[in-house]
């Protein structure tokens, strides 16, 4: 280590400095230092999510790089009304990680009734949803997840973190497709209620 590299006087922390929205505007304007700052802010969350889904350190690294590059190139497509920058960014990571897991897997595992495409469609930006409410922390969500019946929690975990498709989840659990759908639906509805988002108005689904 060079003598010239002394400890910096201050380390930028979350409460100070530009907001996430300002950083994203910097990304849209092509400012590398804004990308640098956004990366520093969310790299551990992003890498944690990518590693959890891929269970592969090297693949997770690629996923995080792809996700931040996606945000860099597509920052002007962020819609402020549809969730925070954090959720947007981490949703991109989630989306790309699932895509990476699916690409890694042999195509023979694709459901037989599919139309036979061997390669996935080009990566699109994820369908991004907002938050139940701002500032929810890990403990709150973990507590809410722990209130779910085991069968629902298991279906939800497989759907969100395993990179499996619905038919693969059904195989894994040994239940019909319809049961997978209803368990994941019930789990999401309960989670939303536990997190204090109020009753669902639209999510009852078809009878």
């Amino acid at each position, binding site marked *: 280590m060079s003598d010239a590299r002394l400890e910096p006087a201050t380390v930028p922390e979350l409460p100070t400095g530009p907001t996430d929205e300002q950083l994203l505007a910097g990304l849209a304007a092509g400012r590398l230092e804004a990308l640098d700052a956004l990366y520093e802010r969310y790299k551990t969350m992003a890498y944690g999510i990518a590693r959890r889904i891929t269970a592969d350190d090297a693949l997770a690294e690629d996923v995080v790089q792809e996700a931040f590059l996606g945000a860099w190139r597509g920052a002007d497509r962020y819609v402020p009304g549809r969730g925070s920058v954090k959720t947007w960014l981490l949703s991109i990571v989630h989306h790309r990680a699932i895509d990476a897991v699916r690409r890694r897997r042999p195509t023979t595992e694709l459901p037989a009734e599919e139309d036979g495409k061997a390669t996935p469609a080009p990566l699109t930006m994820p369908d991004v949803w907002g938050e139940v409410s701002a500032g929810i922390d890990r403990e709150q969500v973990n507590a809410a997840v722990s209130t779910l019946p085991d069968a629902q929690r298991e279906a939800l975990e497989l759907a969100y973190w395993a990179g499996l498709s619905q038919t693969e989840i059904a195989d894994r659990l040994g239940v019909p497709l319809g049961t997978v759908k209803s368990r994941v639906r019930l789990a999401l509805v309960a989670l*939303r209620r536990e997190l204090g988002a109020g009753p669902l108005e639209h999510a009852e689904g078809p009878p």
Partner: protein
Amino acid sequence: MTDHPNLTCDEVRDLAPLFVTGALDAGEMHAVRDHLAGCADAHAELAELGEAATALLETTEPAEPPATLKPRLMAAAAADLAEGRHPASAAAANIVSLDKARARRGSRLGWLLAAAAVIAAVALGGWNIALRGQLDTAQAYRTGVDQALALAAQPGSVTAFLTAEDGSVSGFSVVGQDGTTKLAVRGLAPTTGAQVYTAWSIEGDNAPVAIGDFTVGPDGVAVATAQAPDATPGAVIALTLEPNAGNQAPMGPVVASGVTRDPAAG
């Protein structure tokens, strides 16, 4: 290839929980998206379930990615700018060409003053050189900065600010009209054994061209002269740490990079 079935609103509602968790396969995801794009119903149920799903992101234990990831990301992002893959790069190129002639006459001095202010800020920020008794290091760096500034004042020169992953490396590179390149960089880890830092010029889609190798001592400062192919705004200048000198393609990690720009344009 989009020969997936057209879905009804009820079918989309049925698939909603798996759509928002990412558990549909690619064809089904497309079918839902196609339906949403053309449907009069806003399908608010998707947003409601989706909000619950994104809360799950919070349940992940954060993990520190390898330190090599950031330089890789930043180099790729810089290459995006240089190669026009970033939306802002096309706009920036436009402004350069429109304002070039006028700016070259009027604002070169103004830009140089601005650059000098940036360099002064770099020199003061983070390192209290005088108190640490590192005047020699500071002097070496300043000499390099002076030389580079002199070159930057020549018409046709382009300049790149070089930055690293964590701000530990900073400096800049000036490429003169004839390709003469002056580098002044500090905060570099000292080289050991056969290691060298190699400066590369990357233009458009072309492979990186090595423009010079140099070693770095314990002071972490590099003041070097190299030879680039020419002075093209928008080229990426990248520094890599190579296991040995003379590599024709980068083998080691990118430690700092920047995009050259015409000082008169900004």
